[in-house]
């Protein structure tokens, strides 16, 4: 037993040790997240260009006013929200179906789970190039399959047609991210005790009752987390759209818009204003989701 008199200095020593061990990681977070974010915020109020950061002048809210009056910005906001809502809801529905399937006690389940990791592991740029090739208007396999099935009468230019390109990109994201949602929901399903399901069956619950009344409520924490993670990723999507459709207005998201202003137009002021607005948009969604999540799991422990 340690005598009480020695406990206090020991604890103080340990606290100092903890801060010393934590300091390098905190310094790194400050350097790669805190500082760049603050710089972006302050550049947003200046007329800085990429070549003239040092001589930038304060211009107040001009960059924000300019961005908020740019129809391309609002188009990007609209595209981002459509992309996020459609891809995340499709991924949730498909992911739930696949997770129930992988939890049903089929033979070869381990192999199926390994397969589920494949699209998740494929680099996004690669997924974008592969789907771009499959969507090719003349030689693409998607057109070939759909023509063969009689769904379309003539080849479609999936990525060039502004009416279709956003949907085509969303489908690619669904392919890439559904496995992630599947694995999260599968982990959630496996925490539901078998006796709960068995008891509900004994009480005469049909499959649909079981899903809606028992499984979905118990799965809620996993669903909320999957939606939160996916929504954060979908709202900042860049790689997929940049590679598949370049800077086309029909699919440009807020990330595409921001990088174009910053790097292609070298307009650090306006680009930073767009970056700040992007951050605010994503921050609002994240805070809303964390509040929705809190009663279910208790995040801060």
């Amino acid at each position: 037993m340690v005598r009480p008199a020695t406990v206090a200095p020991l604890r103080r020593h340990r606290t100092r040790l903890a801060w010393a061990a934590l300091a390098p990681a905190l310094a790194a977070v400050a350097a790669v997240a805190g500082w760049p974010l603050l710089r972006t915020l302050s550049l947003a109020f200046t007329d800085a260009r990429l070549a003239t950061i040092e001589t930038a002048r304060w211009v107040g809210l001009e960059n924000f006013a300019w961005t908020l009056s740019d129809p391309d910005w609002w188009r990007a906001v609209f595209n981002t929200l459509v992309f996020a809502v459609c891809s995340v809801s499709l991924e949730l529905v498909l992911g739930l179906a696949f997770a129930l399937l992988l939890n049903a006690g089929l033979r070869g389940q381990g192999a199926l789970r390994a397969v589920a990791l494949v699209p998740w592991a494929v680099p996004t740029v690669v997924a974008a190039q592969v789907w771009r090739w499959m969507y090719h208007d003349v030689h693409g396999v998607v057109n070939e399959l759909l023509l063969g099935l009689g769904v379309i009468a003539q080849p479609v230019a999936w990525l060039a047609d502004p009416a279709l390109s956003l949907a085509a990109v969303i489908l690619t994201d669904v392919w890439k991210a559904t496995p992630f949602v599947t694995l999260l929901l599968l982990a959630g399903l496996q925490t539901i005790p078998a006796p709960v399901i068995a008891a509900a069956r004994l009480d005469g619950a049909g499959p649909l009752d079981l899903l809606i009344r028992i499984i979905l409520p118990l799965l809620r924490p996993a669903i909320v987390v999957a939606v939160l993670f996916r929504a954060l990723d979908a709202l900042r999507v860049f790689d997929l759209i940049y590679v598949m459709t370049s800077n086309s207005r029909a699919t440009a998201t807020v990330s595409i818009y921001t990088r174009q202003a910053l790097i292609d137009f070298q307009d650090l002021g306006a680009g930073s204003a767009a970056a700040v607005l992007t951050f605010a948009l994503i921050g609002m969604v994240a805070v809303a989701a964390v509040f929705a999540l809190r009663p279910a799991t208790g995040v801060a422990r």
Partner: protein
Amino acid sequence: MRRRRLARIGLYLGAGAFLAFTLFPVYWAAVSSLESGAALFTIDYWPRDPAWENYSDVFADQPFGRNIANSVIVATLTVGLSLALAAGAGFALGRVSFRGRRLMLAVVLATTMFPQVAVLAGMFELIRGLGLYNNLAGLALSYLLFTLPFTVWVVTTFMRQVPAEIEAAALIDGAPPWRVVWSILLPLVRPGLVTAGLLAFIGAWNEFLFALTFTLTDAARTVPVAIALISGASQYELPWGRIMAASVIVTLPIVALAAVFQRRIATGLAAGAIKG
């Protein structure tokens, strides 16, 4: 009885649909990578006469070997840096209860939601200021933005699960604290370090936006940028066979890693997300 058999058949059909949806694009990339010339432009579901020249062309027409080496270096640096920082932070946040612990954990985890473009301007300036533009070390540094939150989280979670008695026994034996961390705690949380390291490696290997923005020449380009920028004789004639070959080359090691460590990755993702 019959209904059950029907349900069973339905399940296997569902599994088949799942397999087709998940694997077809990968299969199609592999088939296309083995076709060249006119064969590429006719739809064959099996390469009738496999041509391997796309694979050699990828290395001959551009410095793809250099790009692969760059990706390996950046990913390795990122993993090393992230794990070194996360080991200390994980010890502090997982083993010691001090005032401000929850706040610090929240600060680290909050960076998960930082969109990369939101810090792009400031990061560009930082990297240029440090003289790390077009430099692999600069890329690895910037990647800490997205690797640190989850590596710290995974290591902290594993640190918490080590029974207090083990650490107390070593301390009572008179071992200095750094030795307790180094030779008792770190070996015990090795599964956590491996999981976190794998996820960090995959994240760094696949990253595109920073690599596109902070590198300029082929000498510093990583694989995703190289694949995105492969171009052919004209804007309208992309060398699809070569692009697919390059895609297969960079995807194979990652898929192999994911397959070997699938249980770890799946639990890592679930632990990171379910408890996060």
